[in-house]
């Protein structure tokens, strides 16, 4: 027999409720983690094999970190931006935005030094430029390469199988746990219909459940591996 209050129609006038910044931040972080799953790595007009892309990326980052002259930096910039220009505009925005953010943050960190030591200003600007270009290069690679292509490229570089296996598992669980965080916070949001004075208690709960789930997942994976003949000695393909 259902209680009387459940038979009545209830309408609420929700009070104002602020301070949801932490919740929103965690949800967007979870969203980014979960989105790794839909990373399709579509190729642009310029088709480059994944192994070549990976080697080029590594070479580019090493060259960028060693570059001392503005001219070399500008040449690398022309190369990276030339490649980026082959990408569709929608991808370009999502590649350039985090790069600009990282460069801006670096600039802010360098600002006191640049003001106090004007002589080193050019070097500081070069470092900011290096950060900007490195993030663009990594983002281009990320946008244009599927995870399984990356795994294949690493195998061809004779990276130990156990490393690749751990990388694959890590990515898989980042996606799973990201999805779990988003779902938990969504479910919380659907029931948080009034003023929640103990918001951070629910955040603690969400993170606690995520931690428990991650330990459970690792145990279950381990058990499933043992059931299929795993004996601590990983033999890669």
């Amino acid at each position, binding site marked *: *027999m*259902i*209680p009387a*209050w*459940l*038979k*009545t*129609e*209830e*309408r*609420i*006038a*929700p*009070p*104002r*409720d602020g301070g949801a910044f932490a919740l929103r931040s965690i949800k967007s972080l979870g969203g980014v983690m979960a989105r790794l799953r*839909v990373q*399709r790595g*579509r190729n642009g007009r310029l088709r480059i094999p994944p192994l070549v892309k990976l080697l080029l990326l590594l070479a580019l980052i090493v060259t960028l970190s060693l570059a001392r002259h503005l001219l070399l930096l500008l040449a690398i910039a022309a190369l990276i931006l030339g490649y980026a220009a082959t990408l569709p505009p929608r991808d370009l925005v999502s590649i350039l935005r985090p790069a600009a953010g990282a460069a801006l943050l670096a600039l802010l960190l360098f600002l006191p030094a640049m003001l106090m030591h004007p002589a080193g200003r050019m070097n500081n600007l070069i470092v900011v430029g290096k950060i900007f270009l490195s993030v663009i290069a990594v983002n281009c690679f990320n946008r244009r390469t599927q995870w399984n292509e990356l795994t294949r490229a690493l195998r061809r570089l004779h990276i130990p199988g156990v490393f690749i296996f751990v990388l694959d598992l890590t990515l898989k669980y980042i996606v799973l746990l990201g999805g*779990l965080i988003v*779902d*938990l916070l*969504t*479910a*919380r*949001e*659907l*029931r*948080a*219909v*009034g*003023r*929640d004075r103990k918001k951070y208690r*629910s955040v603690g*709960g*969400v993170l*606690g*459940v995520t931690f*428990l*789930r991650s330990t459970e997942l690792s145990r279950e994976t381990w058990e499933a591996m043992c059931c299929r003949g795993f004996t601590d000695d990983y033999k890669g393909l």
Partner: protein
Amino acid sequence: MPLIELENIRFAYSPEEQPVLRGLSMSVEAGACVALRGDNGAGKTTLFRILNGLSFPQSGRYLFDDTEITHGLLKKQREAKRFHQRMGYLFQNPDVMLFNATVRDEIGFGPRQLGLPAAEAEARIRDCMALFELELLADKAPYHLSGGQKKQVAFAAVLALNPEVLILDEPLAGLDRKTRERLLALLAELRAAGKTLLIATHDDALCQSLNAQILTLEDGQIRE
């Protein structure tokens, strides 16, 4: 006038993907009971997400109680809270709904949010636990319960908000016979109390016992 009205809804998860819903239209009267069927991946959960304002269609209109539910509307915190109080959603996977330390806290989360006086909130928690016979689990951590128990706790937590519409994604899946029967009786009572029920299910017994209108989701559209 229908309580829920969907007009020509088109939804795809990304521009590159095939749309899951293609020009879907349906309407649900207040107090109706609708069973939604469809193959796996037909878009039942997607439709439920749209009904709950968790996803928004690329085109088409969703009206709830004559108000168009849009991203812009639900960005306003008060409107979102008002809407979510009227719409209760039981997820297919109860794991994602449970984040409190104990079953009592989990069920009490909604009533506390509503700002009910402590005694009334406590009474609601007691009532909901009694409905699902969860009294003995009151101080246990929801995370450590069995799948069926988690489902019941999640359902009790949704009911504690006293929503007008209940959207239930496979509510009887994975439950033992006794619990199934208790839940069927509860759903019948909720229906008799005037709640609007939308249930994704493949369970014939459930549709028959609730005398539900059966809609089938096929090729992104509703077929009666």
